[in-house]
């Protein structure tokens, strides 16, 4: 049983006027056999969380723990520690070395240790088979493969290291929808069979819902709500989660005019609003209800633990009643 925990993780980039807090005091936990979905829009910090977990960016403060043992950034991780956390990237056209056969790419990730050439080849063939690729394609270069097939190779490479934690960062957003389904099915099947813990990151709420057991919603570098996936989505506490749920396109035709759950754009992360970062766009915040000045003055994160789904909203209960129409 493995548990990955993030304890008050903060990641900053740059200094002085260019300083950017990409992730602010994030607490997350995911155990083996479960999938934690991380959803959010641009600048939410979800990909930075992925990089902090894999050690590709150093954590400014807070800790990433694997079974209670702190993991540093990649340079401070031992080979064995590196192996335990693997990642599948968004763009399968950028994540495979164009000059290396797919078999070599997978073989490179096999755990260190003495093994003969033919034994290694056997393991690679087994891994390719696991992700539904023909083992005799091992000699091919990525250029001969479609996007979906490349993403399968990337998955095989991640699994070659026999990871305890798999980080999947927008793994289907570069793929066609008909291929997306196959990759999601494969990921779920392997996850159930091999039992690793998964951090599944996507901007697509419907995709996250289909894959995840637990759900964390991020906005401007913070987790604003988290809990059991179905609980959060059936009764979202935070107005931002409500807006996200309401914005998911459905195949049910809509009335005219279309309901717009939230106005405005995600603010510049360099220049975050004071108090609750969502207040300038919030449908139940001071923009709509001017007496709610607390949203501008006080960070709702402080009391979050006591609210349902740890919602970072001063009016979580109120917000629930005022759920937007048109859902």
């Amino acid at each position: 049983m493995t548990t990955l925990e993030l304890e008050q993780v903060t990641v900053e980039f740059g200094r002085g006027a260019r300083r950017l807090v990409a992730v602010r005091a994030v607490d997350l936990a995911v155990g083996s056999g479960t999938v934690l979905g991380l959803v959010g829009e641009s600048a939410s910090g979800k990909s930075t969380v992925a990089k902090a977990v894999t050690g590709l960016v150093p954590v400014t403060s807070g800790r990433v723990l694997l079974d209670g043992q702190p993991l540093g950034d990649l340079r401070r991780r031992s080979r064995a520690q590196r192996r335990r956390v693997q990642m599948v990237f968004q763009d399968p056209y950028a994540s495979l070395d164009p000059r290396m056969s797919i078999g070599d790419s997978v073989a490179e990730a096999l755990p260190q240790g003495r093994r003969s050439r033919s034994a290694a080849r056997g393991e690679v063939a087994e891994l390719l088979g696991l992700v539904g690729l023909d083992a005799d394609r091992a000699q091919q270069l990525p250029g001969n493969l479609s996007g979906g097939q490349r993403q399968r190779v990337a998955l095989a490479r991640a699994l070659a290291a026999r990871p305890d934690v798999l980080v999947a960062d927008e793994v289907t957003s570069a793929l066609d929808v008909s291929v997306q389904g196959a990759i999601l099915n494969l990921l779920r099947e392997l996850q159930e069979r091999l039992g690793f813990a998964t951090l599944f990151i996507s901007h697509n709420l419907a995709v996250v819902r289909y894959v995840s057991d637990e759900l964390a919603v991020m906005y401007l570098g913070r987790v604003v709500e988290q809990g059991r996936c179905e609980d959060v989505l059936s009764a979202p506490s935070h107005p931002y989660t409500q807006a996200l749920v309401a914005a998911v396109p459905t195949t049910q035709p809509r009335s005219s005019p279309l309901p717009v759950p939230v106005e405005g754009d995600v603010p510049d992360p360099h220049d975050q609003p004071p108090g609750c970062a969502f207040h300038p766009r919030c449908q139940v915040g001071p923009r709509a209800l001017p007496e709610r000045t607390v949203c501008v003055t006080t960070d709702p994160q402080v009391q979050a633990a006591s609210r349902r789904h740890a919602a970072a909203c001063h009016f979580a209960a109120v917000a629930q009643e005022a759920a937007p129409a048109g859902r």
Partner: protein
Amino acid sequence: MQRSSWLRALRTPTGAATALGMLLLLVLAVVGPPLMRDAATTFNTSAIRQGPSGAHWLGTDALGRDVLARIVVATRLSIGLALVSTLIGVVGGVLLGALPVVLGRRAGRAVRAFVDVAVAFPGLLVALSLAVVFGVGARGAVLALGLTAVPSFARLTANLAAGVAEADYVSAARLAGASRGRILVRHVLPNIGEPLVINATIGAGSALLAFAGLSFLGLGVQPPGYDWGRLLNEGLNRIYDAPVAALGPGVAVVLAGVAFSLFGETVAQVVGLRTDSRVKGAVPRLALAGEAQDGAVRAAPRDDLVLDVEDLTVAFPGGSTPVAGVSLRIHRGEMVGVVGESGSGKSLTALAVAGLLPPQATMSARRAEFLGHDVRALDDRERRSLLGTSLAMVFQDPMSSLNPALRVGRQVAEVAEVHLGASRATAAGDAVAKLAEVRIAAPALRAQQHPHQFSGGMRQRVMIAMGLVAQPRLLVADEPTTALDVTVQRQVLALLRRVRDEHGAAVLLISHDVGVIAELCERVVVMYAGRVVEEGPVADVLARPAHPYTRALVESVPDMTTPRTRPLVTITGRPPDPSARPDGCPFAPRCPRAQARCTQEDPPLMAMPGTRAACWFPHLDERAALAAGPVA
């Protein structure tokens, strides 16, 4: 494929000249010295300082040696020295430039800083002083030129390597525990090899020139040795009485330098690093289809039809036809969605409609009418004015369709100035009004800003505002929300719907996302492999698809009600290659319902209750109860 592109390069004038020049240099360098060394070195006191003659084409020098023979013999030394110094430069540069990959962050930064400073020194000056340091002579000059070339190669290597080192596949290798050395050898060097080779070739050409310069100044090859620079020096003393003796080695240096540079360019072209700068012959945007001349007869516009395209085909040289027989009709104020995956031809269909196909594409159609005008019969100016005012286009990436150097208000105003002939002042006022109309807050202030100060959603609104200036009859939006956040996506879709409601403009929305189309459109056109496979009212088609492809497309996308316990529907295989479509239905190889007929006969679009579908065995059973609705 690689070999054929080299052969093709040989057939271009540049390529042929390069090959000829390099071959000549090679032959001279190999054969020259053994054949002509005698003539080049034997003193002949009876023939001192002769001018050109039958026996000595370029005359003789102060010791009676044949100048032409000396030039030919010097080929080997001149080129050899240039190559050796280039080799020193490349090896040193690659080693130095690759150091940051192997070293830690801080040491790597120090190396890069050193390289940056070293590059700033003027090369020839450094070479001159180094040549003095190493001692005057060929060895000193080779070392000097080689070391001078090191910083620039180091910087090139470091920059290229830094680009590769950020690639996801290097991150993946690091996660897998690969050492820095392994990452350098297995991932970085193979991926930066091509540009390095090309630059080394071009560098050899300039090393040749620089070496000739050093020898000419007396800092390179010393007597009795001689290279072209040395010969140039000797010849220069007699420039007034025997100019050919000086010109000969000069011409040799120039020709060899040009040959090397051309070689580098040719390699670059084949490898594809430089784009072909030759201007392609202007290809007409719309090639007239043979039978398209009934346009005059039907000149009176049927007034509710905005766009009427029949049997549209878009072809590219090489036999690829990504759009093969698409018919599309859009009525006034209608919102039509075209859905399909990448390669389905949906974007090319939109570009063809807007007259924006790339120049190498050819379009043909049985009918192509916009507002009753046959767009193929219009001349350039008429087409520009018709499409410019009545058709607006919104693309996926608004940043690349806005000019980053111009203020936003100016760009919107320009539309009114160009197409409506408005004065600058009225156009500027109108632009602010249009920005307000697409709900940009503080429009007067925003009009003064540049596109980079706008968020993605706001830029997309600006694009729509530009389209609204001239009261369009059709707005073509190609994946307008794909680059946007979901909350912003809804805002833009709502804006598109308002444009229709308030301006009466028809909207053609292209998307890979069935959900986005369902949100906005009344009618949906499903494209697969360059043709329409199903078409009908959104409610009918998406709720009860008749074509197996539509059904798979709808079911493969999870939405907020998809049961988590069941696997998602998937489509096996890949769409056919647009240059080699199979006989029969293009979806047959991937279709679970396909039978023998499907692989032999191509199904046309057939009317079915509530929809039209190109399928011999559609999902009709589930639709049987549905009354036949109006089919567009």
